């Protein structure tokens, strides 16, 4: 995290000079500050930061005063020879197009890292054919499959889920790697390279050369136990923290409310859990879009929750349905492992024995051939009771697709569950569960956990002549197909929870809501619908761009808040409470803060007025902490739980400038020293002989020199 976003290490002289210059550079006066002649700050850059777990550190590191290198624009893999061996002015700062951002090139540069000062990757607006920096087998050590449980299924021995993965996100680089957008700044950098750094006819390029400096110094080293130990050192009044655990909040809501103060096992309570994950990641810090990886799943689940609202009020099913949205699943299942831990230790409103079955929505937006697949765990299905419940769930799901254009199919071969939160539940006890996904074996997602997994990956296109508000309402093909999936999920959940069979066909998800959610989560979060469902004090988290799905360390992730308020608006009820009553509902006879959460939301702007129609929503939607149990227990080297932490840093910036040759610098120093010595000698000489030199008009009784 950014602790102190000011430059460090300025001498007081520099501060004086810059403050003097700043005084003269106020407002519109065009000022020839020397610094502006030298440096060009790069503003649209995203760094790669360091993450640590129990045994390793991954990511990138720069030196504390930045890494400077002569810019070299890489043209092909063979051109790597120039920065790595042939170039006469190491170290080099290599500028890569995204097509060259491959594992082989990065590994070559990692091996010769004394000649590479850093890497800058230009990220284009169009995606390459495929790119996934994640590993081929996501979360392989913290899932359910291990040497004790389905050993032939562990470590992706039967199915490689992410075959396109090159594992770059999990490599450690000791030089900084930044990403640049394809804009004017990058053009300027390339022009600077063409003007100054090109070798003419095989001879070395002449000084001054164009160089880049990247600052991304990370404070944490080695692994999580080391950095957590260093966090605890209490030397001074202001202890320096070096890393923070990744985590945020899980969102959960249920059809029938639970008393939030009564934890543990509930007698005769049987719950169907519907789960989805909220987060994703990318190689660079925080710029994760996760369209297929996570958004498709949780949008479907939100739409299903909305579809179930009416029918569960009129004809409540036997079992309760609990909608759970887990954060931090990318990093070894932080959210789901925390919920399972809470259930095991009686810190959640239900416990594992109350769970009847689990239906998880995985990646569901890219179904080609119109089939979706129902993944289940073959090891737990060897138990007949579990198997029966699973078969029943499969039946419920398959019968729910009547009238819609696709089928739900179980995979042909016996293969493990894909990476999913259900695996953490199975680690605790054999629970029947199904993961719904659009891939039969390997992912259909060609950009799993990368910054290209965006709206374009889902073919989310709008006609070009629409305004943003019209785009919000426009129902895209993607929205229609996800609506159908949501309808299937809602019907299956209702049947699974023992609801009235005659009402099943009335359950339909609303495509309007799905397309508005897709627009808000993948194109622009600052739209009128999101503004209407959010609280007034949270409206600043809405931006004209899509939200970031990286789980982060600040416990204030935008997707969590959005999903919390959306779930409340879609499954809860609007009440007549005033704003002060909404904050203290316990004073009213029929309301209870223990059973429900009361959220004051902005509401829409009525046509003929400017004031918003705010109101109080009562919903059984809660947030629970999603920080890995390893940090609660203090087991920072845990092999069972996620131990991911993110390093802290002071500032991150990038700039380009020209560097002069060493010869000119030494010449300047030499001339300076010569001038100093000469002046010292001459002054000494003149001052000792002053009486002779200036004797003719010495005034009487004046002081001697």
């Amino acid at each position, binding site marked *: 995290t950014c602790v102190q976003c000011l430059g460090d290490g300025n001498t007081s002289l520099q501060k004086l000079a810059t403050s003097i210059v700043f005084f003269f550079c106020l407002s519109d006066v065009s000022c020839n500050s020397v610094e502006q002649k030298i440096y060009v700050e790069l503003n649209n850059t995203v760094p790669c930061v360091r993450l640590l777990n129990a045994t390793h550190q991954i990511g990138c590191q720069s030196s504390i005063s930045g890494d400077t290198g002569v810019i070299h624009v890489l043209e092909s893999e063979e051109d790597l020879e120039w920065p790595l061996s042939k170039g006469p002015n190491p170290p080099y700062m290599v500028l890569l197009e995204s097509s060259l951002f491959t594992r082989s090139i990065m590994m070559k540069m990692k091996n010769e890292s004394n000649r590479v000062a850093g890497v800058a990757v230009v990220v284009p607006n169009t995606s390459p054919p495929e790119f996934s920096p994640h590993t081929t087998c996501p979360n392989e050590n913290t899932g359910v499959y291990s040497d004790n449980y389905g050993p032939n299924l562990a470590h992706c021995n039967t199915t490689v889920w992410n075959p396109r993965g090159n594992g770059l996100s999990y490599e450690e680089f000791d030089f900084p790697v930044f990403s640049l957008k394809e804009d004017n700044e990058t053009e300027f950098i390339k022009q600077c390279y063409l003007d100054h750094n090109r070798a003419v006819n095989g001879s070395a390029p002449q000084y001054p050369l164009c160089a880049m400096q990247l600052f991304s110094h990370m404070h944490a080293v080695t692994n999580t136990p080391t950095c957590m130990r260093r966090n605890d050192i209490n030397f001074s009044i202001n202890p320096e923290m070096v890393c923070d655990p990744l985590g945020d909040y899980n969102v959960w809501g249920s059809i029938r409310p639970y008393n939030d103060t009564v934890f543990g096992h509930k007698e005769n309570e049987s719950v169907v859990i519907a789960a989805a994950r909220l987060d994703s990641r990318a190689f660079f810090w925080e710029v994760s879009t996760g369209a297929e990886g996570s958004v498709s799943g949780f949008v479907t689940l939100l739409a299903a929750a909305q579809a179930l609202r009416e029918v569960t009020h009129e004809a409540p099913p036997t079992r309760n349905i609990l909608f759970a949205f887990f954060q931090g699943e990318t990093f070894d299942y932080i959210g789901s492992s925390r919920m399972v831990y809470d259930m095991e230790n009686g810190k959640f409103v239900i416990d594992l024995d109350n769970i009847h079955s689990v239906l998880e929505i995985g990646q569901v937006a890219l179904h080609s051939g119109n089939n979706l697949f129902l993944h289940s765990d073959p090891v737990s299905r060897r138990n007949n009771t579990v198997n029966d419940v699973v078969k029943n769930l499969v039946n419920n799901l398959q019968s729910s697709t009547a009238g819609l254009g696709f089928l739900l199919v179980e995979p042909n071969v016996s293969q493990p569950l894909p990476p999913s939160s259900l695996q953490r539940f199975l680690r605790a006890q054999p629970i029947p569960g199904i993961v719904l996904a659009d891939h039969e074996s390997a992912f259909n997602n060609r950009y799993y956990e990368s910054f290209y997994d965006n709206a374009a990956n889902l073919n989310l296109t709008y006609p070009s002549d629409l305004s943003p508000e019209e785009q919000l309402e426009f129902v895209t093909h993607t929205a229609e197909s996800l609506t159908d999936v949501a309808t299937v999920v809602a019907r299956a959940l209702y049947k699974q929870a023992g609801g009235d069979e005659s009402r099943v066909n009335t359950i339909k998800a609303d495509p309007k809501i799905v397309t508005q959610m897709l627009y808000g989560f993948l194109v622009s979060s600052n739209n009128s619908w999101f503004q209407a469902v959010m609280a007034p004090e949270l409206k600043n988290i809405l931006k004209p761009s899509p939200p970031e799905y990286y789980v982060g360390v600040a416990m204030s992730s935008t997707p969590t808040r959005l999903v919390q308020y959306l779930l409340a608006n879609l499954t809860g009820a609007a009440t007549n409470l005033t704003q002060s009553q909404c904050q203290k509902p316990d004073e009213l006879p029929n309301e209870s803060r223990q059973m429900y959460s009361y959220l004051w939301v902005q509401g829409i702007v009525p046509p003929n007025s400017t004031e918003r129609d705010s109101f109080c929503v009562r919903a059984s939607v809660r947030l629970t902490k999603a920080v890995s149990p390893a940090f609660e227990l203090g087991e920072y080297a845990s092999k069972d739980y996620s131990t991911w932490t993110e390093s802290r840093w002071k500032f991150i910036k990038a700039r380009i*400038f020209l560097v002069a040759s060493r010869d000119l610098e030494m010449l300047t120093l030499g001339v300076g020293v010569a001038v100093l010595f000469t*002046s010292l000698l001459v002054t000494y000489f003149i001052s000792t002989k002053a009486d002779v030199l200036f004797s003719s008009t010495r005034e009487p009784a004046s002081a001697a020199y």
Partner: protein
Amino acid sequence: MTAAVFFGCAFIAFGPAFSLFIFTIAKDPLRVIILIAGAFFWLVSLLLSSLVWFIATKATNAQDLTLQKNLLIFGSIFSVILQEVFRFGYYRLLRKANEGLAAISEEDGPPLSVREMAYVAGLGFGIMSGAFSMINTLSDSLGPGTVGMFGDSQYYFITSALMTLALTMLHTFWGVVFFEGCERKRWWVIAVVLCVHLMVFSLSLLNPFYVGSILPVYAIMLLMAVWAFFSSGGSLHNITLLWTCRKSNAETSS
């Protein structure tokens, strides 16, 4: 451009001033006081002239670049005139103070001659003027980059340091000549100093054509050095005396 350039330029710009300070001023507290007061006078003159310039720029269109450049030239000419006015003001102040110092000193008569005060005052002006010219540039020379991205010459730092050195020495010489002229009531000296100052300023406008700006400025500096030498009591005879003195010392000691 890194520490080598920082120290090189610092030594070039402030080396002579530093050595003058160490060998001729630092031992005598009165001289130090006159030096610092001189620096302060120069500073006040710069502040007032920059106020005028600031008001002028604020009152006009900030986007019109030629107008702003002309305003800068006007402001600098005004600053040169104001500096000379303040030099005259400082001369008057020192003359008045001299009588008071003579009254309280232990010896009979004033502790410092007008010549010494002239030299110290000029050096004070020069040091402060050099500091203001150079400190900003020096602080930016510490970083890894050098000037040149937007077409400026890469010798920017060295030439800035050389100009600062020349300006410091010029202020010293002007101080000597100016005070001597005021003492002898030769008012044309003031006019000449003002004109030479304006000439140096206009030569500096020729940057980055460094050949046309630095070489003439150094030529002027040499001329002023000769004039200051003669006006502070030196003569060719003294130089030959010095030479023969050294020769005879060498002969007797060998």
